[in-house]
């Protein structure tokens, strides 16, 4: 694997990580209480929190 390809793969993996974490939380909560997945709005809040809000706050805090 060339260095540029490896860098792209790592970038893709990093971009995928928040979705993966959100997915694990969503599935765990949903299996415990399936009412969680009857409406898309909790999923939206969870996804936006994991993919956008928390990473943005993390970046700001590190600065």
């Amino acid at each position, binding site marked *: 694997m060339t260095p540029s390809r490896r860098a792209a793969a790592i970038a893709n993996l990093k971009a995928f990580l928040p*979705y993966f974490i*959100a*997915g694990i939380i*969503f*599935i765990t909560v*949903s*299996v415990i209480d*399936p*009412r969680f*997945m*009857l409406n*898309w709005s909790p*999923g*939206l809040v969870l*996804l*936006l929190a994991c*993919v*956008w809000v928390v*990473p*943005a706050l993390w970046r700001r805090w590190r600065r």
Partner: protein
Amino acid sequence: MSWVTHDVEPYVIKRHVAKLEAKIGVQISFMAILIGSWAPDMMSKWFVYGITVGPWAIKADDPREFHRSWPGVGFTHSLFYGVLIGLVVWLLFRRGTAAKAWGIGLMIGIWAHVLSDTLDSNGVMLFFPITTAHVHFDAWQYAGETGRFRDAAAYFSGLGFVWDGFWIGMVLLNYRTLGAVYFRANIMTDSFFGFLGRWIPESGLLAIYRLAFFYGVCRWISWLIWAHVTHTNAFDPSWGGPDWIRPVGVVLSLMGGGCPCGSPH
């Protein structure tokens, strides 16, 4: 009904209407296809499954007929309804630049929903108002009248979960549709994302775009685990299955607590 298909098929449809878009000179709205794909069930599903408000249990007398027949709201599951909603949106907002994109998108989304629903045992009034006859291919049992959780258990035990899996696979085969490059070129131009873009950065907009796929995949996995790992519903991926679902007409009351899946365990 299709539990996850309606969430994920708009991604594949949007990817494959490029030729139509080039022909009519309009970039069809992805959000319109998605909302159209949800639209037929949006206002009626709660009444099919029933809800409790204080001491009152509110539910259709005959959920199966109410959902898909006439009289009832079965007209929402017809090709005519797609044309009607598309035309209304187009005419109401015809002065706006997005009217055509949304009108056509809603129609395509509703048609996708309606055609998917022909696969269950209840079917849809596809050619309403010309005829109220149901078109149904009986691939899996319609069990809406048994309540939301029992319906989920039946759907994710029969061929329904395979159908959903097929559409998830189709999106994964077209994985570029979930990428940032595709999003910038084909989705962000949509007036909906243009509007949200005033407050939300691209990473947030991309998450909103991917939401339906994320929601669909997570629900598919969750329902399968719930139905077959935490509960003991037997898989029956035969045509017309699962056999264990109670015959239509036997309405289970799930309002009284206990296990929400309605299974006798």
